[in-house]
């Protein structure tokens, strides 16, 4: 099944503009704007309008951090409309407990679900394709299933191939096609809820790298160039909202741990996937410019990497 039908089916079932259509339109507009700004030089009105905002919520309990960050972005109602389907992609990749900071904080995930529910979402799915296994163990140890289901979501470990469909990535340079979560095409809203960790292969794993759990065959990414594949994927499937969990971050032995952790008590949120990662890299004292996949994603137009061009709002 090609990408066209993935979109086609999604649009058929709703009849209005789909999330993907919107993203493509917005991206096109964004590209046009950035092209314009390059022509007209710095400080143009167009550039100011396109300047991405990253909200950093601090010094609260995890659930409150999420609420404060989303409120600062205009509230969940801005992203999720009544009757829409929402796909939430946390990191449930490893059989580790929340305190090891290898998987997204369960309270953060549950609060995102709660906000979506309050905004009137008709279906909320929390999905990830774990590296570790068995799925039942990963779910149990991560502690996400209980709170998220209580908040009104369905938590699904996406191990079975039936949950994926083959999609060709048109703008990709390395990842020409992939088996992608069907729900990514079907959902109206795609929310990425990663955790911030160091990573031995990609230096850091933040929002963009977290999207790797939305495909069936990750091995192909390693074979055809990991950094470029991450950039390709985030360009093709940008999340509508990124809510990055930095309540506790993993500083060593990432991505699986256990390693040294630090309690940052932060949630970083935004709509620009690269900008959120660029800011979050600074939590580790690293420059996003030095992180291969973020540099490539920026080059492909997936988002802003230069911190001086990102508006950071502290709440």
């Amino acid at each position, binding site marked *: 099944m090609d990408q066209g039908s993935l979109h086609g089916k999604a649009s058929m079932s709703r009849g209005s503009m789909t999330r993907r259509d919107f993203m493509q339109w917005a991206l096109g507009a964004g590209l046009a704007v950035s092209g314009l700004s390059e022509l007209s030089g710095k400080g143009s009105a167009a550039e100011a309008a396109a300047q991405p905002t990253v909200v950093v919520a601090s010094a609260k309990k995890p659930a409150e951090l999420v609420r404060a960050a989303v409120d600062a972005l205009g509230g969940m109602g801005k992203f999720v409309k009544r009757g829409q389907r929402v796909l939430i992609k946390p990191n449930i990749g490893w059989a580790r407990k929340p305190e090891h900071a290898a998987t997204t904080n369960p309270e953060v995930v549950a609060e995102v679900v709660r906000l979506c529910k309050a905004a009137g979402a008709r279906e909320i799915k929390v999905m990830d394709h774990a*590296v570790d296994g*068995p799925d039942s163990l990963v779910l149990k140890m991560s502690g996400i299933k209980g709170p998220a289901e209580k908040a009104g979501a*369905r938590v699904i470990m996406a191990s079975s191939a*039936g949950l994926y469909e083959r999609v060709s990535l048109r703008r990709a340079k390395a990842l020409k096609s992939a088996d992608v979560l069907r729900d990514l095409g079907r959902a109206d809203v795609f929310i990425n809820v990663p955790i911030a960790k160091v990573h*031995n292969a990609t230096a850091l794993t933040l929002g963009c790298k977290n999207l790797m759990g939305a495909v069936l065959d990750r091995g192909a990414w390693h074979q055809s160039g990991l950094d470029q594949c991450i950039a390709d994927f985030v360009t093709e499937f940008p999340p509508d909202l990124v809510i990055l969990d930095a309540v506790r971050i993993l500083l060593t032995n990432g991505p*699986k741990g256990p390693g040294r952790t630090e309690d940052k008590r932060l949630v970083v949120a935004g709509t620009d996937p690269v900008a959120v990662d660029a800011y979050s890299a600074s939590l580790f004292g690293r420059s996003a410019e030095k992180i291969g996949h973020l540099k490539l994603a920026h080059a492909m137009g997936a988002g802003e990497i230069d911190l001086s061009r990102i508006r950071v709002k502290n709440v």
Partner: protein
Amino acid sequence: MYKRLRAARRVSQLLFLAAFVLLFALATFPPKTRIPVDLFLRADPLIAMSAMVSLRKLIFPLVWYALPVVVLSLFLGRAFCGWICPMGTTIDLCERLFRIRGRRPSQAPPWSRAKFYVLIALVVTMLLPAAHRSAKEWALTDTVGVSAVYLMDPIALLTRTFTLVGLPVSQWGMGMTRDVVTEWSYATFVGDHPLLDRALAPIQTGLSMVTRDSAVYFRLGLLSFVVFGGVVALGRYARRFWCRNLCPLGALLGVLGKVSPVKLAVSEKCTRCMRCVNECKVGAISEDPHEYSGPECIACYSCAAVCPEKAISVTTGSRDTGRDGQVRLDRRRLLEAVGVGLMAAALPKVGWGARRSQATLKVLKARSAHLIRPPGSLGEDQFVTACVRCGECMKVCPTNALQPAFGEGGLESLGTPILVPRIGYCAQSCTQCGRVCPTGAIEVCSPEEKTHVYLGTASVDRSRCLAWAFGNTCVVCQESCPYQAIHADVDDSGVPRPVVDDWICVGCGMCEHVCPVEPDGAIRVYSTGDRRHWTRDEQRELREQAEQESTGASPYPGL
């Protein structure tokens, strides 16, 4: 009255079979119950005897579990066979599939003594020492026997069939259903009807609870199916052919039941209508209905239920009845049975298994590179003899990693569990295989101990590794390693490349499992670092030492 007893027996059979299936289904990780899910295997006196005789030691948990069946047999003879045995019930249920109509019981082959010879041959294998070796090796291990009981024990045979055949088939069925329901849930029609959508969700959730992450399969499944199918299909030649002629457990219980005070008595009302003779499942009643063979009778009481004159009754005490308690063995056949036992023990030695366990003080030599045993396994000699190939460990293994050995350990270890990392890995917090092993061939170890229970050692093939050979960014093995036994060696251009720390690596196989290089991983686990012949303390000390020292140590300490 005896019709009721027969009905009670049938209910009992079905209940025990249901319990057997339920316990089998409950053998999962994470565990769902505290009941020992291998209860039927533990309660099997033949398995207990085999483990204790061949390992030359008393194993008390096995004594306690097997005791009820022993006591039952002392009082009621082979009532276990008639009322409890799930294999017997399975054979009863399949009887009609194979029965030839109109065949008279007298046409059944008169082989009922064969099962006693089978039992004798098996006992011979248990008594024979497993191997002869040099004085240096002798000190390492007790002299153990080489039990072949797995070939014939009915409970082991049935559990094995359930695992190797039943599990993949049932998982296949449930997995297909799950996929179909998943397909529906994405259909536009369903998506547009929230009610349908909501109705499908619990079905999907339910199916995902009983279905494994991925398809389950086992090598040797077909062989196991053929053996089981053969046992059931023998019903063509006689009812309960297996139970009356071949089953060594039945023979053992029959011998125990010789002292049973409970007997069948036939009164003068008998008209020699021969209905009981025709009805008897195991051919225990002779041509003269007043006489029957005690060690053959499975106490099913069908004879009493069908007797039109109500001439047959159950009595106790010393009253003289027509029961013949003798097991008459032919001396010539007896010698043959001993000979068969000797051969069963000796024949595997002609194969490549003969050199499997040449242990010097610290290193196991000349074994298959892929003979990787589950965590907590006994030393190879003891393991092979204690394992009854029931397959419970393979059933419970959540990643499908445990597979029956085919060629890895020679003929002697046919069907014993080995870890095949490309199929699955040993999950870090799981120690279920040890907990469900009925004979203790896999000893229980805690998840904490798994950091120093060395199964093998991983080794990177640098000529095929994406990072080493091609400069790709890939250290999935290093990311996934639960024990942090792999570190990244960063080259001049910043590409991390995996290096294994031989002493930290316990050989769980996660790295080999996740390696994206096909078809075999570029990192593979070999039995190199298998340290089962060390004590747990020795292994723990090695691990502690390894953590203090740096990397790159030899997997052959002491050489």
